[in-house]
């Protein structure tokens, strides 16, 4: 699927159809993934506004009459007030890197591209969160996070946007809703400065979250040899070597350094970092993400 600049409504329509065609399988896979995680009820373990019953307590002066639970109070002489558990919805912002670099798969027949894995994970996470009543939104999307099933469709539309020309895209540092959480999916192979910036800003606003670095096994192993010209997915960056095997050690060192950098910045900002590979089980990544988002609550 190539990026098609929208010239005329017909082109736009065609591009839209092409993108839409990918919704059902993506959604289906995300649903399947989400159903394999069964979230428990996650109240706030304190009284507040909500729908679940929390406790009865004796009425005290100052309580409103309408709060008295007459059925319970009729059993005794004192008045009781029915309290509900506090169930505040949380805002989760998701960002998926859709640069060309993410479209890479080391073994296209057997492994999905990194972007596909990122989208599945993002959607599955969104499904889980929406099911839990949270508000979910996209970082790129100016509309605030919302809850409900309809939001899923909007998320999906936002996730599958037109293809980009750039190899790497960075998250845009922005104003997060208060107490929100954020999840960033990318291979983080591009410039790290923007990412670090975003992290710093988010930490400043009290926003926590997770960095998920998606890498293809080929990128981890560097199984190349001989005279090779490497080029980025868009072809903008090239590098030629006479003997690829000789570069393996230094490449792996650099990759490890990049991972360390991300992990340390994440830790400093109070974020979590996960390196996920194309041949890993997406379920484990989803579980990790879900529990990570639960933990900080």
């Amino acid at each position: 699927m190539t990026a098609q600049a929208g010239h005329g409504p017909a082109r736009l329509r065609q591009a839209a159809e092409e993108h839409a065609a990918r919704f059902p399988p993506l959604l289906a896979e995300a649903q399947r993934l989400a159903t394999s995680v069964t979230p428990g009820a996650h109240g706030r373990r304190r009284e507040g506004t909500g729908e679940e019953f929390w406790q009865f307590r004796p009425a005290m002066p100052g309580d409103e009459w309408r709060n008295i639970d007459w059925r319970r109070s009729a059993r005794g002489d004192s008045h009781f007030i029915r309290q509900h558990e506090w169930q505040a919805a949380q805002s989760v912002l998701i960002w998926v890197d859709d640069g060309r670099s993410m479209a890479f798969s080391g073994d296209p027949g057997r492994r999905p591209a990194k972007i596909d894995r990122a989208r599945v994970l993002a959607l599955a996470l969104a499904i889980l969160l929406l099911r839990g009543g949270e508000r979910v939104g996209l970082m790129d999307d100016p509309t605030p996070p919302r809850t409900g099933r309809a939001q899923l469709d909007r998320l999906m539309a936002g996730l599958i946007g037109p293809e980009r020309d750039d190899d790497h895209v960075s998250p845009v540092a922005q104003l997060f809703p208060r107490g929100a959480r954020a999840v960033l999916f990318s291979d983080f192979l591009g410039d790290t400065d923007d990412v670090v910036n975003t992290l710093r800003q988010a930490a400043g606003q009290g926003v926590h979250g997770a960095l998920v670095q998606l890498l293809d096994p080929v990128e981890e192993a560097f199984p190349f040899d001989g005279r090779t010209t490497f080029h980025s997915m868009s072809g903008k960056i090239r590098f030629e070597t006479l003997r690829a095997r000789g570069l393996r050690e230094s490449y792996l060192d650099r990759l490890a350094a990049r991972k360390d950098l991300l992990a340390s910045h994440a830790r400093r900002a109070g974020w979590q970092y996960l390196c996920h590979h194309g041949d890993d089980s997406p379920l484990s990544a989803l579980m990790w993400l879900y529990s990570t988002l639960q933990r900080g609550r």
Partner: protein
Amino acid sequence: MFPFQALTFMSPWLLIGLLALPVLWWLMRAVPPAAVRRSFPAVTLLLGLRDEESTPDRTPWWLMLLRMLALAAAIIGFAQPVLNPGAAKIASKPLLILADASWASAGDWAARQDRIAAVLTDARASGRRVAVLSLTDQSARTGPLPFGTAGDWKAALAALKPSPWEPDYAAVTSWISSQKSAFDTLWLSDGLARKGRDGLARLLMARGNLTVVQGRNALMALARPRFQDRKITVTALRRDTGQGQEIRVNAIGPDPAGIERRVATASATFGPGERSVTVSFDLPTDLGNRIRRFEIAGLRTAGAVALADDALKRRKVALFAGTAPREGQELLSPLHYLRKALQTGAVVIEAPLRTSLLAAPDVVIMADVARIAPAERDALAAWVRKGGTLLRFAGPRMAAARMRPGADDPLLPVRLRPGGRDVGGAMSWGSPRHLRPFGKESPFFGLTIPDDVTVTSQVVAQPGPQLAARTIASLQDGTPLVTWKEMGKGRVVLFHVTANAEWSSLPLSGLFVRMLERLAILRRASTPTPADMAGQMWRPERVMDGFGTLRKADDLAAVSGEALAEGRVGPDLLPGTYRLGPRQFALNVIRPDRVLKAATWPAGVAVAALSGAERKSLAGWFLALALLLLALDIPATLLVGGRLSGPRGTLAAIFLLVLLVPHPPAQAQGAGGDGDARAIRATRDTVLAYVITGDARIDAKSEAGLYGLSRVLTRRSAVEPADPIGVDVEKDELAFFPLLYWPVTETSPIPSDSAITRINTYLQTGGMIVFDTQDADIAGINGVSPASRRLQQIAASLDIPALEPVPPDHVLTRSFYLLQSFPGRFSQGQVWVEAAPPDAVKLEGMPFRNLNDGVSPVVIGANDWAAAWAVGRDGGYLYPVGRGGYAGERQREMAYRFGVNLVMYVLTGNYKSDQVHVPALLERLGQ
């Protein structure tokens, strides 16, 4: 052993391309292997890295060598190298192709024809003029050599046949020496030394190039069979005295039914360096007498066939005398001289006449028997008419017998005057009479008459119109001494003298024995000399062609005895069997004194082998080599380019392995394991089987039919057969199957002898075959529909008892269902089973005859049951039955019922015929 000198290139100018190889070498050295382009997102991490070690930027020498070799092989391959180009070389002179088209070249005649055809093809391509000359063709040899276009000769090539005689070089030599033109010669020699070959070869070499092509296969022949030491011996000759070699000689003759079969086989071994070996057959007289010819097994030439004739036959002779010999007067016994004469050459039977006739004698000799009982006379006459020879001798009793006037003894060739006559005795005036030389019509013609043979008494024939014609020997005064007459296929011969020396000295002389020989009563002692056979005209019976195949020779003229005795086989005297009256003579290709020797050629003659010398294009091999090298180049290039790692490398390695490892032949897995699995499958459950006809449609129908029947059986009865199995009667074991369904069509193969034997064993040991001609019995079982004719051919040698249409009380009608018709896809056809024994009777009050023994080994019908039973794997019926609709389904149901009955009948035998079931059956029959 690798004749490189015979390698030429059809397009040699292409080899110039080899010159370009060094240039290519230099070019390829100069260019390093190309870089691979890979998309790799993490390229950002690579930026700024430096190569620490440098890879060779030049292609390594071994890879270069590989590619150069591949290229060289391709160039050589396209230049079309040809091994043994033969006459393909460009030559302008016309080409004479000489063929020793004798019996000795019949063995590899097809290869010779192919060779000539190949040479003709080349000649046509180059426009060369050709003449093909068969050296055994002794037609007119005048005028110029018949050079013509190769196309014309090619058309005539198919008619070129080897002759049973050998070439005569003298005629061709004189013809060619009269030619002035120059030409090259290709001589397809039979490889036997022969007079005149050398001279002809030298003559041909003087005219141009002479190339000789000789077959390499062993050349063997059989000489005339003889009778020696009570054994029949045949001498086998061979040309190549090399290592020892074992041969088998088959004796072939008619069986009692008149069909030619192998009577006996003997083997013998040529010792190293031996040219001949004697093969002997020790056979009972009856068997030995049947032999018509001997053949070396596996050879198909006239030389390897030796025909048998009278000389091998030991006749059975029954002797009778009118008077028992008086004691102590052995020399006066009427049979004494006959016994002596017959001692070596015949088998003598002396028993009462009726008993003797049962032994099927060839000859009956009666010495002085005047009266024969009427019954015996009729039996004897019938025996003579069937081909026997009755030889009678006169004597006192016969002379004394008084014939009723007008009554003719049928067992005498002429009427006899009572009394006989005495000449030269003590009481007569005349002197003993000598014999008159035998006339031309007489079988004794040519025998020399010793002076001392005299006749003193004899019986005298009544003069009559036929007397002269029936006389074959007479005295000097013209009175008949021996008379004969034909009777049916046999003959009656009468010697007008006694068989002992009382009336004449004839039995004492050698002439007597020779006369018996001529009458084919005694075996010929030796090969006849031309003088023996002078003046006789022998009629050819069966003659042989160059391949040793015999044919009837009714269209050929008779040949003279001298020529026959001389035995010089030629266009006018074909080898074969010849007949003159009762005598038979076999003329064989190989004369008794023949020695087979390899031909020698003058120095300078190129002698090529027939088989190895065929043109062989090597282009394919070189191109294949080039391809193989290029295939090797793929992984080598990957290796050099560093791409031989990861999954791609594994893939390449696997590909290479698959390419290089020769595939084991599929049959290597052997019939062993397969056969065992099959046997287990066939025996674990009851399995219905059908015979594979080779016609895929019929086989599929049989399989589906038996599958449908198996399903019905499983559903309705306790028989639960597994899936049906197809059986090849030639190979597969039949014993596992209770029932064989055998669809017969006009193209069904006829089983081989070994298969017939196994089928017969199967039938005898309780198997059952259902023959189905599937043609609705249009013409009846004895009819002429193609399928039923083929069925007759198949069944001809099977052990099938007498048949009858299924009688209404046959067990088949009640073994499970009560049935009276046996429809399949068709319903009219008659169904035949083994006939009930004639003594089966229906008892009073019983509905069925007591047929308690034997299950019919065959059921023959034409109703195409398989089609009615056929069910696809999806459970649907495959063929319509009857007219379809309800009636059709009813008919299908009846077909299934017949199938169930059939299987029940096979599995339970005549259980349902048991009388125990009669009451229940009666009840069900509503009686």
